[in-house]
Protein backbone atom coordinates (compact mmCIF):
# COMPACT_ATOMS: atom_id res chain seq x y z
CA UNK A 1 0.00 0.00 0.00
CA UNK A 2 2.91 2.34 0.69
CA UNK A 3 5.91 2.07 -1.58
CA UNK A 4 8.95 4.23 -1.01
CA UNK A 5 11.60 4.12 -3.71
CA UNK A 6 15.02 5.70 -3.40
CA UNK A 7 13.57 8.59 -1.44
CA UNK A 8 16.10 11.37 -0.97
CA UNK A 9 15.80 14.80 0.54
CA UNK A 10 18.51 17.38 0.95
CA UNK A 11 18.21 20.76 2.60
CA UNK A 12 20.97 22.72 0.95
CA UNK A 13 24.16 20.75 1.45
CA UNK A 14 22.68 18.68 4.27
CA UNK A 15 21.36 15.29 3.28
CA UNK A 16 18.38 14.59 5.54
CA UNK A 17 17.08 11.42 3.91
CA UNK A 18 19.40 9.33 1.82
CA UNK A 19 18.09 6.82 -0.72
CA UNK A 20 15.38 5.27 1.43
CA UNK A 21 13.44 2.31 -0.01
CA UNK A 22 10.86 0.16 1.71
CA UNK A 23 7.23 -0.82 1.43
CA UNK A 24 4.37 -1.40 3.83
CA UNK A 25 1.50 -3.77 3.03
CA UNK A 26 -2.03 -3.91 4.33
CA UNK A 27 -2.10 -5.50 7.76
CA UNK A 28 1.38 -4.32 8.61
CA UNK A 29 2.39 -1.91 11.35
CA UNK A 30 5.81 -0.53 10.59
CA UNK A 31 7.77 1.03 13.41
CA UNK A 32 10.02 3.82 12.26
CA UNK A 33 12.92 4.17 14.64
CA UNK A 34 15.93 6.35 14.82
CA UNK A 35 17.71 8.92 16.94
CA UNK A 36 16.53 12.52 16.87
CA UNK A 37 17.42 14.16 13.59
CA UNK A 38 17.77 10.85 11.76
CA UNK A 39 15.25 11.93 9.12
CA UNK A 40 12.13 10.24 10.45
CA UNK A 41 9.85 13.27 10.32
CA UNK A 42 11.25 14.41 6.98
CA UNK A 43 10.54 10.97 5.51
CA UNK A 44 7.02 11.01 6.86
CA UNK A 45 6.42 14.47 5.46
CA UNK A 46 7.45 13.22 2.06
CA UNK A 47 5.29 10.11 2.34
CA UNK A 48 2.25 12.25 3.11
CA UNK A 49 3.09 14.59 0.25
CA UNK A 50 3.74 17.65 2.42
CA UNK A 51 7.37 17.96 1.38
CA UNK A 52 8.53 17.34 -2.16
CA UNK A 53 11.39 14.84 -2.33
CA UNK A 54 14.68 15.88 -3.91
CA UNK A 55 14.77 12.51 -5.60
CA UNK A 56 12.90 9.23 -5.60
CA UNK A 57 9.20 8.63 -5.33
CA UNK A 58 6.44 7.55 -3.00
CA UNK A 59 3.23 5.83 -4.02
CA UNK A 60 0.28 5.32 -1.72
CA UNK A 61 -2.36 2.79 -2.82
CA UNK A 62 -0.89 3.03 -6.30
CA UNK A 63 -1.03 6.84 -6.50
CA UNK A 64 2.12 8.92 -6.73
CA UNK A 65 1.98 11.46 -3.89
CA UNK A 66 3.43 14.21 -6.07
CA UNK A 67 1.74 13.44 -9.40
CA UNK A 68 -1.68 12.60 -7.97
CA UNK A 69 -1.67 14.44 -4.66
CA UNK A 70 -5.40 14.59 -4.01
CA UNK A 71 -6.00 10.92 -4.75
CA UNK A 72 -3.18 9.76 -2.53
CA UNK A 73 -3.98 12.21 0.29
CA UNK A 74 -7.58 11.02 0.42
CA UNK A 75 -6.27 7.61 1.41
CA UNK A 76 -3.85 8.78 4.08
CA UNK A 77 -4.50 9.77 7.65
CA UNK A 78 -1.63 11.78 9.09
CA UNK A 79 -0.71 12.76 12.61
CA UNK A 80 2.10 15.32 12.32
CA UNK A 81 4.73 15.68 14.99
CA UNK A 82 3.57 17.72 18.02
CA UNK A 83 -0.07 17.37 16.95
CA UNK A 84 -0.68 20.82 15.45
CA UNK A 85 -4.24 22.16 15.68
CA UNK A 86 -6.08 25.43 15.20
CA UNK A 87 -6.01 26.87 18.69
CA UNK A 88 -9.21 28.88 18.29
CA UNK A 89 -11.44 25.86 17.70
CA UNK A 90 -13.23 23.40 19.94
CA UNK A 91 -12.33 19.72 19.72
CA UNK A 92 -15.59 18.96 17.98
CA UNK A 93 -15.33 21.97 15.67
CA UNK A 94 -11.83 20.94 14.68
CA UNK A 95 -12.82 17.35 13.95
CA UNK A 96 -15.87 18.49 12.00
CA UNK A 97 -13.69 20.82 9.96
CA UNK A 98 -11.33 17.94 9.12
CA UNK A 99 -14.25 15.67 8.24
CA UNK A 100 -15.61 18.39 5.93
CA UNK A 101 -12.26 18.74 4.22
CA UNK A 102 -12.20 14.97 3.80
CA UNK A 103 -15.43 15.31 1.87
CA UNK A 104 -17.65 13.62 4.43
CA UNK A 105 -21.20 14.87 4.79
CA UNK A 106 -24.62 14.04 6.19
CA UNK A 107 -25.07 10.96 8.32
CA UNK A 108 -21.78 9.45 7.11
CA UNK A 109 -20.02 12.44 8.64
CA UNK A 110 -21.83 12.09 11.95
CA UNK A 111 -21.06 8.39 12.15
CA UNK A 112 -17.42 8.98 11.24
CA UNK A 113 -17.12 11.68 13.92
CA UNK A 114 -18.81 9.53 16.54
CA UNK A 115 -16.52 6.62 15.78
CA UNK A 116 -13.35 8.72 15.85
CA UNK A 117 -14.40 10.39 19.11
CA UNK A 118 -15.14 7.03 20.71
CA UNK A 119 -11.96 5.37 19.52
CA UNK A 120 -9.83 8.17 20.87
CA UNK A 121 -11.84 8.60 24.10
CA UNK A 122 -12.59 12.25 23.47
CA UNK A 123 -16.13 12.53 24.91
CA UNK A 124 -15.06 14.39 28.06
CA UNK A 125 -13.40 17.24 26.15
CA UNK A 126 -15.58 17.37 23.05
CA UNK A 127 -16.69 20.96 23.52
CA UNK A 128 -13.54 22.23 25.13
CA UNK A 129 -11.26 24.64 23.27
CA UNK A 130 -8.25 22.95 21.71
CA UNK A 131 -6.07 25.51 23.47
CA UNK A 132 -6.97 24.26 26.94
CA UNK A 133 -6.34 20.55 26.29
CA UNK A 134 -3.74 18.53 28.14
CA UNK A 135 -1.00 17.05 25.99
CA UNK A 136 -2.60 13.62 26.02
CA UNK A 137 -5.94 14.92 24.79
CA UNK A 138 -4.21 17.10 22.21
CA UNK A 139 -2.49 14.10 20.71
CA UNK A 140 -5.63 12.05 20.76
CA UNK A 141 -7.65 14.83 19.13
CA UNK A 142 -5.13 15.03 16.35
CA UNK A 143 -5.14 11.25 16.09
CA UNK A 144 -8.93 11.31 15.81
CA UNK A 145 -8.51 13.73 12.93
CA UNK A 146 -6.21 11.23 11.22
CA UNK A 147 -8.66 8.33 11.46
CA UNK A 148 -11.92 10.20 10.93
CA UNK A 149 -12.21 9.19 7.26
CA UNK A 150 -11.16 5.61 7.99
CA UNK A 151 -8.10 5.79 5.70
CA UNK A 152 -6.33 2.79 4.25
CA UNK A 153 -2.97 4.22 5.21
CA UNK A 154 -1.99 5.85 8.48
CA UNK A 155 1.18 7.83 9.03
CA UNK A 156 1.70 8.71 12.67
CA UNK A 157 4.65 10.83 13.77
CA UNK A 158 5.35 10.03 17.41
CA UNK A 159 1.74 9.28 18.33
CA UNK A 160 2.54 8.49 21.96
CA UNK A 161 4.84 11.41 22.62
CA UNK A 162 3.90 13.12 25.86
CA UNK A 163 1.26 10.61 26.93
CA UNK A 164 1.16 8.99 30.34
CA UNK A 165 1.71 5.20 30.54
CA UNK A 166 -2.01 4.40 30.51
CA UNK A 167 -2.64 6.58 27.51
CA UNK A 168 0.37 5.11 25.75
CA UNK A 169 -1.04 1.68 26.32
CA UNK A 170 -4.40 2.71 24.88
CA UNK A 171 -2.89 4.32 21.80
CA UNK A 172 -0.69 1.29 21.18
CA UNK A 173 -3.68 -1.02 21.47
CA UNK A 174 -5.53 1.22 19.04
CA UNK A 175 -2.67 1.13 16.56
CA UNK A 176 -2.40 -2.64 16.83
CA UNK A 177 -6.11 -3.04 16.30
CA UNK A 178 -6.27 -0.70 13.33
CA UNK A 179 -3.18 -2.36 11.88
CA UNK A 180 -5.20 -5.44 11.02
CA UNK A 181 -6.83 -3.85 8.01
CA UNK A 182 -4.66 -0.82 7.33
CA UNK A 183 -1.08 -0.09 6.47
CA UNK A 184 0.44 1.92 9.30
CA UNK A 185 3.76 3.67 9.70
CA UNK A 186 4.53 5.18 13.04
CA UNK A 187 7.67 6.72 14.36
CA UNK A 188 8.83 6.59 17.91
CA UNK A 189 11.94 6.41 19.96
CA UNK A 190 10.39 4.31 22.65
CA UNK A 191 11.61 0.85 21.85
CA UNK A 192 9.17 -1.11 23.97
CA UNK A 193 6.49 0.40 21.78
CA UNK A 194 7.91 -1.33 18.76
CA UNK A 195 7.63 -4.69 20.48
CA UNK A 196 4.14 -3.87 21.68
CA UNK A 197 2.61 -2.68 18.44
CA UNK A 198 4.73 -3.34 15.37
CA UNK A 199 4.86 -6.23 12.99
CA UNK A 200 8.06 -4.84 11.51
CA UNK A 201 10.56 -2.16 12.33
CA UNK A 202 13.02 -0.06 10.42
CA UNK A 203 15.84 1.75 12.12
CA UNK A 204 17.22 4.75 10.30
CA UNK A 205 20.26 6.76 11.13
CA UNK A 206 21.48 9.84 9.31
CA UNK A 207 18.88 9.31 6.61
CA UNK A 208 19.78 5.70 5.84
CA UNK A 209 18.14 2.42 6.79
CA UNK A 210 20.48 0.58 9.13
CA UNK A 211 18.15 -2.27 10.14
CA UNK A 212 14.91 -3.70 8.84
CA UNK A 213 13.03 -6.71 10.22
CA UNK A 214 10.50 -7.98 12.74
CA UNK A 215 11.17 -6.92 16.31
CA UNK A 216 12.37 -10.45 17.08
CA UNK A 217 14.75 -10.52 14.16
CA UNK A 218 16.16 -7.20 15.23
CA UNK A 219 16.65 -8.37 18.78
CA UNK A 220 18.89 -11.19 17.64
CA UNK A 221 21.27 -8.52 16.36
CA UNK A 222 21.88 -7.29 19.89
CA UNK A 223 25.45 -7.81 21.03
CA UNK A 224 24.35 -10.04 23.91
CA UNK A 225 21.52 -11.85 22.15
CA UNK A 226 21.66 -15.58 22.80
CA UNK A 227 24.06 -15.35 25.71
CA UNK A 228 23.32 -17.12 28.96
CA UNK A 229 23.37 -15.20 32.21
CA UNK A 230 24.03 -17.41 35.16
CA UNK A 231 23.93 -16.57 38.86
CA UNK A 232 25.72 -18.94 41.24
CA UNK A 233 25.93 -19.11 44.99
CA UNK A 234 28.76 -20.63 46.92
CA UNK A 235 31.30 -20.68 44.15
CA UNK A 236 33.98 -18.07 43.47
CA UNK A 237 34.79 -16.72 40.02
CA UNK A 238 38.24 -18.26 39.96
CA UNK A 239 37.01 -21.82 40.49
CA UNK A 240 34.06 -21.40 38.21
CA UNK A 241 36.25 -20.04 35.48
CA UNK A 242 38.56 -23.02 35.70
CA UNK A 243 35.72 -25.55 35.51
CA UNK A 244 33.98 -23.74 32.69
CA UNK A 245 37.12 -23.96 30.59
CA UNK A 246 36.38 -27.65 30.09
CA UNK A 247 33.05 -27.06 28.38
CA UNK A 248 33.12 -27.69 24.64
CA UNK A 249 30.02 -25.76 23.86
CA UNK A 250 31.23 -22.58 25.49
CA UNK A 251 32.81 -19.84 23.45
CA UNK A 252 33.65 -17.38 26.17
CA UNK A 253 32.73 -16.59 29.74
CA UNK A 254 32.92 -13.25 31.47
CA UNK A 255 32.22 -12.02 34.94
CA UNK A 256 29.40 -9.56 35.45
CA UNK A 257 29.60 -9.24 39.23
CA UNK A 258 30.83 -11.04 42.30
CA UNK A 259 29.29 -9.92 45.57
CA UNK A 260 28.45 -11.60 48.90
CA UNK A 261 29.38 -14.99 47.60
CA UNK A 262 27.12 -14.61 44.64
CA UNK A 263 28.70 -14.77 41.22
CA UNK A 264 26.97 -13.58 38.09
CA UNK A 265 28.53 -14.49 34.78
CA UNK A 266 27.69 -14.15 31.14
CA UNK A 267 28.35 -17.12 28.89
CA UNK A 268 28.66 -16.87 25.15
CA UNK A 269 27.63 -20.29 23.75
CA UNK A 270 29.19 -21.89 20.71
CA UNK A 271 26.38 -24.41 20.37
CA UNK A 272 23.67 -25.74 22.65
CA UNK A 273 25.21 -24.93 26.01
CA UNK A 274 22.54 -25.58 28.59
CA UNK A 275 22.65 -29.43 28.97
CA UNK A 276 26.41 -29.43 29.41
CA UNK A 277 26.30 -26.46 31.73
CA UNK A 278 23.61 -27.96 33.93
CA UNK A 279 25.45 -31.25 34.15
CA UNK A 280 28.59 -29.41 35.23
CA UNK A 281 26.70 -27.44 37.85
CA UNK A 282 25.26 -30.63 39.26
CA UNK A 283 28.66 -32.33 39.39
CA UNK A 284 30.24 -29.36 41.12
CA UNK A 285 27.26 -28.90 43.37
CA UNK A 286 26.87 -25.25 42.41
CA UNK A 287 23.72 -23.61 43.56
CA UNK A 288 22.07 -21.86 40.66
CA UNK A 289 20.39 -18.69 41.87
CA UNK A 290 19.14 -17.70 38.45
CA UNK A 291 19.66 -18.71 34.87
CA UNK A 292 18.30 -17.00 31.83
CA UNK A 293 18.92 -16.76 28.13
CA UNK A 294 19.25 -13.19 26.96
CA UNK A 295 16.88 -12.66 24.04
CA UNK A 296 18.56 -9.45 23.18
CA UNK A 297 17.11 -6.03 23.80
CA UNK A 298 16.05 -3.60 21.13
CA UNK A 299 17.74 -0.93 23.19
CA UNK A 300 21.08 -2.59 22.67
CA UNK A 301 20.47 -3.12 18.98
CA UNK A 302 19.51 0.50 18.66
CA UNK A 303 22.57 1.68 20.53
CA UNK A 304 24.93 -0.58 18.67
CA UNK A 305 23.83 0.45 15.19
CA UNK A 306 23.11 4.13 15.56
CA UNK A 307 25.65 6.69 16.57
CA UNK A 308 24.96 8.92 19.52
CA UNK A 309 24.89 12.65 18.85
CA UNK A 310 28.27 13.17 20.43
CA UNK A 311 29.98 10.83 18.00
CA UNK A 312 28.43 12.25 14.89
CA UNK A 313 30.61 14.00 12.40
CA UNK A 314 29.67 17.64 12.72
CA UNK A 315 27.63 19.13 9.90
CA UNK A 316 29.64 21.25 7.59
Amino acid sequence: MITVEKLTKSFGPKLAVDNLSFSVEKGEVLGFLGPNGAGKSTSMRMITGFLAPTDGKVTVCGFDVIEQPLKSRRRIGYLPENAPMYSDMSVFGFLRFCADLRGLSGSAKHQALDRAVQRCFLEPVLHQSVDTLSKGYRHRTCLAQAIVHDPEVLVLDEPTDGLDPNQKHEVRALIREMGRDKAIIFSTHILEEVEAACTRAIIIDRGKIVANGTPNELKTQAPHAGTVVLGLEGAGWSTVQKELGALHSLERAELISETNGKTTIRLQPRENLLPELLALAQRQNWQIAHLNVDEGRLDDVFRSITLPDTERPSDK
Partner: protein
Amino acid sequence: MKTIWTIARRELGAYFSSPVAYVFIVIFLLLTGFFSFMVGRFFERGSADLLAFFVWHPWLYLFLVPAVGMRLWSEELRLGTMELLFTMPVTTWQAILGKFLASWLFLLIALLLTFPMVATVEYLGHPDLGRIISGYGGSFLMAGAFLAITCMTSSITRNQVVSFILSVVICLFLILCSWPPVTDFVVNWAPAWIVDLLAGIGVMTHYEGFQRGVIDTRDLIFFLSVIVFFLFTTSVLLRARRA
Protein backbone atom coordinates in the same frame (compact mmCIF):
# COMPACT_ATOMS: atom_id res chain seq x y z
CA MET B 1 -15.84 24.92 -4.37
CA LYS B 2 -17.03 23.07 -1.28
CA THR B 3 -13.47 22.83 -0.02
CA ILE B 4 -12.94 26.56 -0.49
CA TRP B 5 -16.11 27.26 1.45
CA THR B 6 -15.10 24.85 4.24
CA ILE B 7 -11.80 26.68 4.65
CA ALA B 8 -13.43 30.10 4.38
CA ARG B 9 -16.01 29.21 6.99
CA ARG B 10 -13.35 28.06 9.43
CA GLU B 11 -11.40 31.25 8.85
CA LEU B 12 -14.47 33.43 9.43
CA GLY B 13 -15.23 31.41 12.53
CA ALA B 14 -11.71 32.15 13.77
CA TYR B 15 -12.38 35.90 13.46
CA PHE B 16 -15.65 35.82 15.29
CA SER B 17 -14.65 33.32 17.97
CA SER B 18 -12.10 35.79 19.31
CA PRO B 19 -12.52 39.47 20.21
CA VAL B 20 -10.49 40.41 17.11
CA ALA B 21 -13.54 40.72 14.88
CA TYR B 22 -15.51 42.91 17.25
CA VAL B 23 -12.58 45.11 18.18
CA PHE B 24 -11.77 45.56 14.52
CA ILE B 25 -15.30 46.42 13.51
CA VAL B 26 -15.74 48.90 16.35
CA ILE B 27 -12.43 50.61 15.59
CA PHE B 28 -13.18 50.69 11.88
CA LEU B 29 -16.57 52.28 12.45
CA LEU B 30 -15.23 54.77 14.98
CA LEU B 31 -12.40 55.81 12.70
CA THR B 32 -14.54 56.14 9.58
CA GLY B 33 -16.96 58.24 11.60
CA PHE B 34 -14.22 60.36 13.11
CA PHE B 35 -12.49 61.05 9.81
CA SER B 36 -15.69 61.74 7.89
CA PHE B 37 -17.26 64.05 10.43
CA MET B 38 -14.38 65.66 12.28
CA VAL B 39 -11.51 65.72 9.82
CA GLY B 40 -13.50 65.52 6.59
CA ARG B 41 -16.02 68.13 7.79
CA PHE B 42 -18.94 66.17 6.45
CA PHE B 43 -21.56 68.65 7.61
CA GLU B 44 -19.67 71.82 6.77
CA ARG B 45 -19.28 70.66 3.18
CA GLY B 46 -23.05 70.86 2.80
CA SER B 47 -23.03 68.40 -0.03
CA ALA B 48 -25.19 65.27 -0.13
CA ASP B 49 -22.46 62.80 -1.01
CA LEU B 50 -20.04 60.51 0.77
CA LEU B 51 -16.80 61.94 -0.60
CA ALA B 52 -15.70 62.95 2.89
CA PHE B 53 -16.25 59.34 3.89
CA PHE B 54 -14.61 57.47 1.02
CA VAL B 55 -11.58 59.70 0.72
CA TRP B 56 -10.17 58.35 4.00
CA HIS B 57 -10.50 54.69 3.16
CA PRO B 58 -7.02 54.17 1.65
CA TRP B 59 -5.46 55.53 4.85
CA LEU B 60 -7.65 53.45 7.12
CA TYR B 61 -7.09 50.30 5.09
CA LEU B 62 -3.37 50.94 5.15
CA PHE B 63 -3.35 49.80 8.79
CA LEU B 64 -6.57 47.92 9.26
CA VAL B 65 -6.37 45.51 6.33
CA PRO B 66 -2.88 44.23 7.24
CA ALA B 67 -4.19 43.81 10.79
CA VAL B 68 -6.99 41.60 9.51
CA GLY B 69 -4.84 39.56 7.15
CA MET B 70 -1.53 39.25 8.99
CA ARG B 71 -2.47 36.01 10.68
CA LEU B 72 -3.77 34.22 7.57
CA TRP B 73 -0.65 32.18 6.86
CA SER B 74 1.67 33.28 9.67
CA GLU B 75 -0.58 31.54 12.15
CA GLU B 76 -0.59 28.35 10.09
CA LEU B 77 3.19 28.45 9.99
CA ARG B 78 3.53 29.16 13.69
CA LEU B 79 1.11 26.47 14.81
CA GLY B 80 2.33 23.96 12.24
CA THR B 81 -1.22 23.45 11.03
CA MET B 82 -0.05 24.08 7.49
CA GLU B 83 1.29 20.54 7.58
CA LEU B 84 -2.17 19.34 8.44
CA LEU B 85 -3.90 21.48 5.85
CA PHE B 86 -1.65 20.47 2.98
CA THR B 87 -1.82 16.77 3.72
CA MET B 88 -5.59 16.96 3.41
CA PRO B 89 -7.14 16.61 -0.03
CA VAL B 90 -6.84 20.37 -0.56
CA THR B 91 -5.00 22.17 -3.34
CA THR B 92 -2.82 25.20 -2.62
CA TRP B 93 -5.25 27.41 -4.55
CA GLN B 94 -8.28 26.18 -2.68
CA ALA B 95 -6.57 27.00 0.59
CA ILE B 96 -5.41 30.43 -0.58
CA LEU B 97 -8.79 31.37 -2.00
CA GLY B 98 -10.65 30.07 1.02
CA LYS B 99 -8.59 32.18 3.37
CA PHE B 100 -8.58 35.24 1.15
CA LEU B 101 -12.32 35.17 0.55
CA ALA B 102 -13.04 34.73 4.24
CA SER B 103 -11.05 37.82 5.15
CA TRP B 104 -12.47 39.77 2.25
CA LEU B 105 -15.96 38.84 3.32
CA PHE B 106 -15.10 39.97 6.83
CA LEU B 107 -13.95 43.34 5.47
CA LEU B 108 -17.16 43.53 3.47
CA ILE B 109 -19.17 43.01 6.64
CA ALA B 110 -17.27 45.82 8.35
CA LEU B 111 -17.75 48.04 5.32
CA LEU B 112 -21.48 47.35 5.10
CA LEU B 113 -21.85 48.24 8.77
CA THR B 114 -21.08 51.83 7.78
CA PHE B 115 -24.64 52.00 6.35
CA PRO B 116 -25.65 54.73 8.83
CA MET B 117 -23.47 57.04 6.72
CA VAL B 118 -25.67 56.31 3.73
CA ALA B 119 -28.78 56.74 5.85
CA THR B 120 -27.50 60.12 7.03
CA VAL B 121 -26.94 61.58 3.58
CA GLU B 122 -30.20 60.04 2.45
CA TYR B 123 -31.97 61.82 5.31
CA LEU B 124 -30.21 65.12 4.77
CA GLY B 125 -30.46 65.42 1.02
CA HIS B 126 -30.82 63.60 -2.23
CA PRO B 127 -27.55 61.82 -2.86
CA ASP B 128 -26.69 60.02 -6.05
CA LEU B 129 -27.07 56.40 -4.94
CA GLY B 130 -25.19 55.07 -7.96
CA ARG B 131 -22.20 57.11 -6.92
CA ILE B 132 -22.38 55.78 -3.38
CA ILE B 133 -22.57 52.18 -4.58
CA SER B 134 -19.66 52.74 -6.91
CA GLY B 135 -17.72 54.26 -4.02
CA TYR B 136 -18.40 51.21 -1.89
CA GLY B 137 -17.39 48.96 -4.77
CA GLY B 138 -14.08 50.77 -5.22
CA SER B 139 -13.42 50.72 -1.51
CA PHE B 140 -14.14 46.99 -1.37
CA LEU B 141 -11.81 46.31 -4.31
CA MET B 142 -9.04 48.35 -2.72
CA ALA B 143 -9.49 46.42 0.51
CA GLY B 144 -9.15 43.22 -1.54
CA ALA B 145 -5.94 44.45 -3.14
CA PHE B 146 -4.41 45.33 0.24
CA LEU B 147 -5.61 42.01 1.62
CA ALA B 148 -3.93 40.07 -1.20
CA ILE B 149 -0.70 41.89 -0.35
CA THR B 150 -1.07 40.97 3.31
CA CYS B 151 -1.81 37.38 2.30
CA MET B 152 1.52 37.32 0.51
CA THR B 153 3.50 38.91 3.34
CA SER B 154 1.97 36.54 5.88
CA SER B 155 3.10 33.54 3.87
CA ILE B 156 6.69 34.77 4.20
CA THR B 157 6.97 34.64 7.96
CA ARG B 158 5.55 32.92 10.99
CA ASN B 159 5.76 36.21 12.84
CA GLN B 160 2.54 38.18 12.51
CA VAL B 161 4.16 41.48 13.40
CA VAL B 162 6.71 41.14 10.60
CA SER B 163 3.93 40.21 8.24
CA PHE B 164 1.96 43.29 9.32
CA ILE B 165 4.86 45.67 8.88
CA LEU B 166 5.87 44.35 5.47
CA SER B 167 2.33 44.62 4.29
CA VAL B 168 1.93 48.19 5.56
CA VAL B 169 5.12 49.19 3.76
CA ILE B 170 3.97 47.74 0.44
CA CYS B 171 0.49 49.23 0.76
CA LEU B 172 1.96 52.58 1.74
CA PHE B 173 4.11 52.50 -1.37
CA LEU B 174 1.06 51.82 -3.55
CA ILE B 175 -0.79 54.69 -1.90
CA LEU B 176 2.03 57.22 -2.00
CA CYS B 177 3.10 56.67 -5.57
CA SER B 178 -0.12 58.16 -6.82
CA TRP B 179 -0.89 60.49 -3.95
CA PRO B 180 -0.93 64.02 -5.34
CA PRO B 181 1.56 65.58 -2.89
CA VAL B 182 4.10 62.90 -3.84
CA THR B 183 3.39 62.90 -7.57
CA ASP B 184 3.61 66.69 -7.62
CA PHE B 185 7.04 66.38 -6.11
CA VAL B 186 8.23 63.56 -8.37
CA VAL B 187 7.03 65.26 -11.53
CA ASN B 188 9.63 68.00 -11.05
CA TRP B 189 12.66 65.83 -11.55
CA ALA B 190 11.75 62.35 -12.76
CA PRO B 191 11.35 61.45 -16.43
CA ALA B 192 7.80 61.22 -17.67
CA TRP B 193 7.73 57.43 -17.94
CA ILE B 194 8.49 57.07 -14.24
CA VAL B 195 5.70 59.49 -13.38
CA ASP B 196 3.31 57.50 -15.57
CA LEU B 197 4.45 54.20 -14.15
CA LEU B 198 3.98 55.37 -10.58
CA ALA B 199 0.55 56.74 -11.37
CA GLY B 200 -0.28 53.47 -13.10
CA ILE B 201 0.57 51.25 -10.14
CA GLY B 202 -0.75 53.62 -7.49
CA VAL B 203 -4.08 52.82 -5.91
CA MET B 204 -5.17 56.45 -5.51
CA THR B 205 -5.53 57.09 -9.25
CA HIS B 206 -7.58 53.94 -9.65
CA TYR B 207 -9.69 54.49 -6.57
CA GLU B 208 -10.54 58.07 -7.41
CA GLY B 209 -12.83 57.19 -10.31
CA PHE B 210 -14.99 54.99 -8.12
CA GLN B 211 -15.51 57.83 -5.63
CA ARG B 212 -16.80 60.03 -8.42
CA GLY B 213 -19.11 57.28 -9.59
CA VAL B 214 -17.06 56.43 -12.66
CA ILE B 215 -16.44 52.73 -13.02
CA ASP B 216 -13.62 52.47 -15.51
CA THR B 217 -12.78 48.96 -16.75
CA ARG B 218 -9.10 49.80 -16.42
CA ASP B 219 -9.51 50.57 -12.71
CA LEU B 220 -11.45 47.37 -12.25
CA ILE B 221 -8.77 45.39 -14.04
CA PHE B 222 -6.09 47.13 -12.01
CA PHE B 223 -7.51 46.06 -8.65
CA LEU B 224 -8.34 42.55 -9.83
CA SER B 225 -4.89 42.07 -11.29
CA VAL B 226 -3.23 43.27 -8.06
CA ILE B 227 -5.30 40.66 -6.22
CA VAL B 228 -4.46 37.89 -8.67
CA PHE B 229 -0.80 38.81 -8.78
CA PHE B 230 -0.29 38.79 -5.01
CA LEU B 231 -2.33 35.63 -4.50
CA PHE B 232 -0.27 33.98 -7.20
CA THR B 233 2.91 35.11 -5.42
CA THR B 234 1.48 33.62 -2.24
CA SER B 235 1.04 30.28 -3.95
CA VAL B 236 4.60 30.38 -5.23
CA LEU B 237 5.93 31.19 -1.76
CA LEU B 238 3.87 28.47 -0.12
CA ARG B 239 5.01 25.88 -2.66
CA ALA B 240 8.62 26.96 -2.19
CA ARG B 241 8.29 26.21 1.52
CA ARG B 242 7.43 22.64 0.75
CA ALA B 243 9.97 22.04 -2.00
